[in-house]
């Protein structure tokens, strides 16, 4: 990075940090620390919800996903608006009426302390580990592209935000998230504009989209059915898995994950909470669509300009120096020759299209599709060589594509801003996670197990202490993540392993009035075992696990409740 980029990066991060500390004033008790005195207007709630959900990897991974797999990833979010409506009707009124700090408090009121503690434990376990990984994943990408030390990057990524999160609590988290999102949107918009700007004369936005479309990247809607007419249950992203599976995932995440519940509980009243969530339902899908669009434009850019066979420069260099170097060079040469032909076909298609020659355009369009298939195959071969040469390392370069484009093609200053957006996106979601982890620890565990009342000052001190401890824990997980190898991938889907069960417990509490505490507790344990078995046996795509987990808890709990009631009658 140039000195201008460093300056932009430091000024941007410094400003957010100072603003966060400035917003940390006035914390007197647990309500002000975890609920911001319930004073937030709906738009701050909206930005806070969005900032919590969008981690650094969202902005790195989504454009890369569009580059490799097309835009169909957007369907993953189709269930979200439906989930927002369900939450507004059923979940929010209960949380506001009971005036809870954490979602799990409600479970003790409805069932018993055992169910509350089990659910809170599942949350702390999955959120604590996944926050560590959400520090490590972007740090790894930045450090390998920039040549930075991974441990220092981890500390900047996950450590600096601890300063304002510890001192300011939920209020500082929400206000900084608003500021962070503004900077992120500016950075992403400028990056999208620059892709179009850097394309040669005669190729504009429409041509770029057509080029990507010819290579199958504008596949926004997919049915999920195979050519034989059979539904593909292992297909990750299609209209049905997005609407149904995505709905259950979004209800679980926004309705039962304290990192989100803690955000909208800071709202002034029920109406402001609802407005924040509903607006999230309006803006989330278009926002994700635009991020994916940026990835598709990057694809068109690399159709015209030279693209590397792998975007992970660090592993590419290591592979070239290894004993598989010759093999890799050969794969790289084949890839280059395919890309040259692909570029010729792209330019020829644009010319034919402009001349109105439909026959030639159709011919070049077929060539483009064929060259893309060959390029994908060649990239897969290169990835497999990289994997063999670097055992244990993640050879998949999807997360590197967007940043590779930024670092190698954008002007000075803008690179610094885009790198800053990666840090800020990470800070937003990590800060909310730390605040919720500390909240659940003190409210669900500490106060529950040591109920002797103490002063507000003492509770505030403990809250800050737990935030700091969780911050250190998450950074420590990030520092150790390099030794975890393929576990990282497993931890990434960790949320889906637990969300279904947690949602099932909440559904029993809200909708199945007859279910008893004992029945729900046992069915939650059994369902969790079923989910882990299904995940390990790779029977279905992970999005369906949310639905299966939820349905399993509800059905088992009803069955156990009815069986016990019948047995009692007989006795």
């Amino acid at each position: 990075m140039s000195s201008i980029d460093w300056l932009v990066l430091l000024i941007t991060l410094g400003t957010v940090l100072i603003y966060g500390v400035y917003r940390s004033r006035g914390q007197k008790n647990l309500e002000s620390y975890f609920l911001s005195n319930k004073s937030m207007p709906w738009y701050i709630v909206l930005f806070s919800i969005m900032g919590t959900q969008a981690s650094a990897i969202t902005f790195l991974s989504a454009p890369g996903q569009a580059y490799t797999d097309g835009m169909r990833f957007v369907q993953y979010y189709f269930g979200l608006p439906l989930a927002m409506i369900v939450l507004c009707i059923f979940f929010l009124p209960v949380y506001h009426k009971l005036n809870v700090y954490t979602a799990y408090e409600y479970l003790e009121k409805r069932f018993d302390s055992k169910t509350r503690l089990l659910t809170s434990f599942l949350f702390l376990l999955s959120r604590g580990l996944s926050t560590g990984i959400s520090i490590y994943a972007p740090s790894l990408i930045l450090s390998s592209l920039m040549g930075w030390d991974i441990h220092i990057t981890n500390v900047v990524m996950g450590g600096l935000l601890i300063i304002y999160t510890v001192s300011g609590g939920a209020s500082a988290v929400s206000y900084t998230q608003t500021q962070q999102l503004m900077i992120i949107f500016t950075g992403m918009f400028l990056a999208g504009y620059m892709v179009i700007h850097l394309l040669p004369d005669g190729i504009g936005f429409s041509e770029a989209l057509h080029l990507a479309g010819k290579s199958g990247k504008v596949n926004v809607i997919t049915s999920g059915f195979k050519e034989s007419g059979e539904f593909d249950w292992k297909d990750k992203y299609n209209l049905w898995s997005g609407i149904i599976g995505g709905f259950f995932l979004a209800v679980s995440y926004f309705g039962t994950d304290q990192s989100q519940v803690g955000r909208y509980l800071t709202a002034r009243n029920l109406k402001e909470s609802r407005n924040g969530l509903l607006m999230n339902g309006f803006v989330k899908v278009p926002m994700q669509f635009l991020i994916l669009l940026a990835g598709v434009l990057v694809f068109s850019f690399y159709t015209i300009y030279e693209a590397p066979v792998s975007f992970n420069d660090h592993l590419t260099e290591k592979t070239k120096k290894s004993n598989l170097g010759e093999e890799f060079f050969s794969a790289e040469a084949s890839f280059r020759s395919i890309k040259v032909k692909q570029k010729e076909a792209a330019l020829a298609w644009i010319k034919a299209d402009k001349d109105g020659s439909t026959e030639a355009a159709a011919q070049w369009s077929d060539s483009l599709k064929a060259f893309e298939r060959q390029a994908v195959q060649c990239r897969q071969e290169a990835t497999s060589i990289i994997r063999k040469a670097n055992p244990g390392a993640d050879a998949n370069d999807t997360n590197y594509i967007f940043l590779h484009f930024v670092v190698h093609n954008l002007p000075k200053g803008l690179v610094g801003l885009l790198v800053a957006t990666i840090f800020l996106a990470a800070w937003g979601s990590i800060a909310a996670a730390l605040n919720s982890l500390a909240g659940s620890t003190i409210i669900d565990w500490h106060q529950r197990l040591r109920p002797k009342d103490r002063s507000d000052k003492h509770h505030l001190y403990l809250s800050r202490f737990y935030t700091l401890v969780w911050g250190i824990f998450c950074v420590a997980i990030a520092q150790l993540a390099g030794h975890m190898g393929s576990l990282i991938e497993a931890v990434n889907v960790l949320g889906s392993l637990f969300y279904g069960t947690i949602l099932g417990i909440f559904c029993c509490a809200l909708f199945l009035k007859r279910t008893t505490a004992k029945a729900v507790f046992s069915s939650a344990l059994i369902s969790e075992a079923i989910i882990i078995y299904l995940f390990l046996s790779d029977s279905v795509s992970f999005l369906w696990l949310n639905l299966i987990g939820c349905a399993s808890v509800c059905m088992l709990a009803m069955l156990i409740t009815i069986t016990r009631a019948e047995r009692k009658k007989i006795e």
Partner: protein
Amino acid sequence: MKKSEQNGAEQKPNGHGKTYAALLLFLFLQILLYTWLSNYFQ
């Protein structure tokens, strides 16, 4: 503002009916638009 309004206890759970309908319609229109885009740019 009344205390009951502050904690939202007296607000109807379904008081946002029009917004819910608008959100569903918006999602439906987006799916239509994306389907058209997928076909147009293929």
